[in-house]
């Protein structure tokens, strides 16, 4: 959809997702790696467990559809070529510590002088300004500071972060949103701008309920396993079944609850639940102590069935339960397959093809599917530095020798 827009991607793990999203939309995203390759290429998992910068599955996951050049932008010669590239770019995505690009003379103010239409987004842990801007962070420390960890996990153990690196995914996604807004506006004003994205702020906003509950009700919530606040009491979210887990909640939906008790009754498992008149028993008025005996009976019913059986019953009787898929379940799911979500990419260098998540969303008119494999280190040096910037083979060899590329 955005063919002929060009982005230079200088990011590490905090920002790789941003360029990946843009590449799916058709933007020509050029990953500018330091000579020898990005440090993020050393993040695992690795294909066949072999630690090698060309085999990082982490890197492949977040760089599909991009091109790659190598360039040392800290030295004068590298800076020169980078400036030339910046003149022809629409977007620069970077995630250096605050002020680092400015220190190199490549900050927004420097580059906008040579390309007034340039849009530059900076993705940093805490933002480019403010008292925390120089703090050292990783995904888990941002999750801790955001308040989300204090809500997640069991009382008898440490607070937990969300799975993998959601503060970085959020930051990369917000950065992509910001860039698209700025492009939209540029098509009217003709001007670029700088966008400052803080991963911390992104994950604070993901903790969308609790800061408000403190402000409005002076209530501090703590982690309590899988129990969710619902009116006066809490309800259980995760249930064991015969071969795995499902999620379901005891909510105020009398019709659904009648259906569930009906199913249980058919198997002689409803017991005292049969006599409950659900429309006269608002769940939100019950205490956790009153809720738990009801949940105990339901738990016995779930435990007797497999996740697929329960899903089938749920669809027939509208019980609104969901299977907790493991990774195999997700990859084999009819839903994602039928929608053509997975994209099979042949990696002959690994002797296999790898299925990767394909599109951002479905549209007949304008596909948002990943377009090519993740590039090898400097795979497009020849095309971009050679042909476009006009460097001869001798120049390139000499620059390589001098570790500029």
């Amino acid at each position, binding site marked *: 959809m955005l063919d002929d827009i060009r982005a230079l991607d200088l990011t590490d793990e905090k920002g790789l997702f941003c360029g990946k999203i843009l590449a799916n939309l058709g933007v020509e995203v050029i990953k500018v790696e330091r000579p020898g390759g990005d440090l993020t290429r050393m*993040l695992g998992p690795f294909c066949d467990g072999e630690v090698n910068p060309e085999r990082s599955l982490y890197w492949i996951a977040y760089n599909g559809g991009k091109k790659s050049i190598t360039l040392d932008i800290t030295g004068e010669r590298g800076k020169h070529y980078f400036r030339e590239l910046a003149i022809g770019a629409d977007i620069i995505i970077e995630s250096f510590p605050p002020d680092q690009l400015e220190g190199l003379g490549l900050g927004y103010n420097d580059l906008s002088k040579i390309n007034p239409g340039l849009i530059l987004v900076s993705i940093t842990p805490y933002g480019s300004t403010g008292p925390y801007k120089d703090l050292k*962070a990783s995904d888990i420390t941002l999750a801790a500071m955001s308040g989300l960890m204090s809500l997640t996990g069991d009382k008898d153990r*440490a607070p937990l972060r969300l799975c993998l690196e959601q503060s970085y995914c959020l930051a990369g996604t917000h950065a992509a949103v910001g860039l698209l807004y700025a492009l*939209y506006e540029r098509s*009217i004003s003709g*001007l670029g701008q700088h966008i400052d994205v803080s991963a911390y702020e992104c994950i604070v906003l993901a903790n969308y309920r609790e800061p408000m509950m403190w402000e409005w009700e002076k209530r501090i919530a703590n982690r309590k396993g899988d129990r969710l606040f619902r009116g006066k009491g809490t309800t259980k979210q*995760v249930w064991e079944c015969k071969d795995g887990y499902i999620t379901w909640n005891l909510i105020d939906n009398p019709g659904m609850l009648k259906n569930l008790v009906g199913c249980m009754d058919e198997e002689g498992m409803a017991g005292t639940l049969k006599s409950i008149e659900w429309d006269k028993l608002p769940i939100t008025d019950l205490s956790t102590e009153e809720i738990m005996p009801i949940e105990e009976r339901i738990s016995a019913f779930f435990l007797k069935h497999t996740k697929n059986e329960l899903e089938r019953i749920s669809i027939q009787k509208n019980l609104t339960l969901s299977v907790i898929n493991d*990774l195999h379940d997700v990859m084999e799911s*009819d839903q994602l397959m039928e929608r053509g979500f997975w994209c099979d990419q042949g990696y002959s260098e690994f002797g296999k093809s790898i299925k990767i998540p394909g599109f951002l969303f479905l549209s*007949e008119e304008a596909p948002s599917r990943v377009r090519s494999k993740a590039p090898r280190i400097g795979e497009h040096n020849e095309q971009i530095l050679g042909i476009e910037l006009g460097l001869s083979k001798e120049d390139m060899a000499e620059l390589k020798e001098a570790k500029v590329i």
Partner: protein
Amino acid sequence: MGTKKSNSNAPALEGLKIADFSWVGAGPRATKDLADNGATVVKIESSTRLDLTRLSPPFKDGIMDPNRSGFFVHSNTSKYSATLNLKHPKSIEVARRFVRWADVVLENFGYGFMESIGLGYEDLKEIKEDIIMVSVSIAGRTGPYADFRGYGNSAAALSGHAHLTGWPDRAPLIPPIAFGDVITPLFAVIAVMAALEFRKRTGKGQYIDVSQWETMVQCIAPAFLDYAANGNAQTRMGNRNQWAAPHGAFPCKGEDNWCALGIFDERQWKDFCSVIGKSNMVNHPKFKTLKARKENEDELEAIISDWTKSYTKEEVMHLMQEAGVPSGVVRNAKEVLECSQLNQRQLFVKLEHPVIGVCNNPSPPMKFSRTPSKVRPAPCLGEHNHYVYTRLLGMSDDEFVSLLNEGVFE
């Protein structure tokens, strides 16, 4: 498309028009972001079928009322509210006028609802050929789960997030937030902006189907590649990280106080050991390399906990930061709201709401140097009916009053 004048400091999306039929979580958060950045977003809602967030706590003074919900305020800033009873026979003509007015229609109703009231994409296209329509749902609008009905946890369960969250010896865990309602609205916004660019280039509109399940899979892509390439089906591992050690939250002085740490390279490991006064650990065969630390992680964590327990969480963070080691205290909501970083950068902005009074409102976490976002208070139910119907849709006052009297705007 836009009416924006160049060089002004107006938000980026000024002039963009959104007819927002969405409700609850995933839709309204998308249109909130667009509205905070200057788009004219009309939230089309009804007192006969209230957006459930208007009935979600907390309420101002504890009084349950559609105009008093803090939860609603937080996901609907900067929008206009117009009420329209979509069950009223005369409503469809009004809804069609919204489509003619809008660049984008966004909805997240149940499967088939928009079609059933004559507002499916095919209908919309007849009204306005280049309309952009975006649907947000749990599993997408095609495939065997097209009519899947779920709620907050469903996408976490279906996508693998729940399976990957929690302790290895315990059940999967779903955090008490609907992450799908956080990340998917951003993908819906990306879809809107990309479709606008596509329309500018081709003159064509389009229908876009955004699935919470799929967007959440995108956010854990490396785990799926590990499975696809290596057959390794990852599972939950508490706070541990295959590629960093130590990596977790460690207990500090006092009750239930914790500080999170993550050591990703050998330099950080050396600095970390010197902070905890155990430089002899740096080259100890049990801990020297990441591989060794992973193999002896229980012991490593016990040593660290012994040290962290003698300091407050702030002291641990401070000592680590001084040595350049990534660290952050586990904070509660009160501490977050009092954070000097957030306050200086104004992530939450205080605004006066007509019923609620002054309260904090979340603003977009992107700071634009030239076109800053501008957050306005969330609307009361039907607050902008007259403005929207007469000024935006161009109804005469007579027509407005007559439809009002017939109950079309309930």
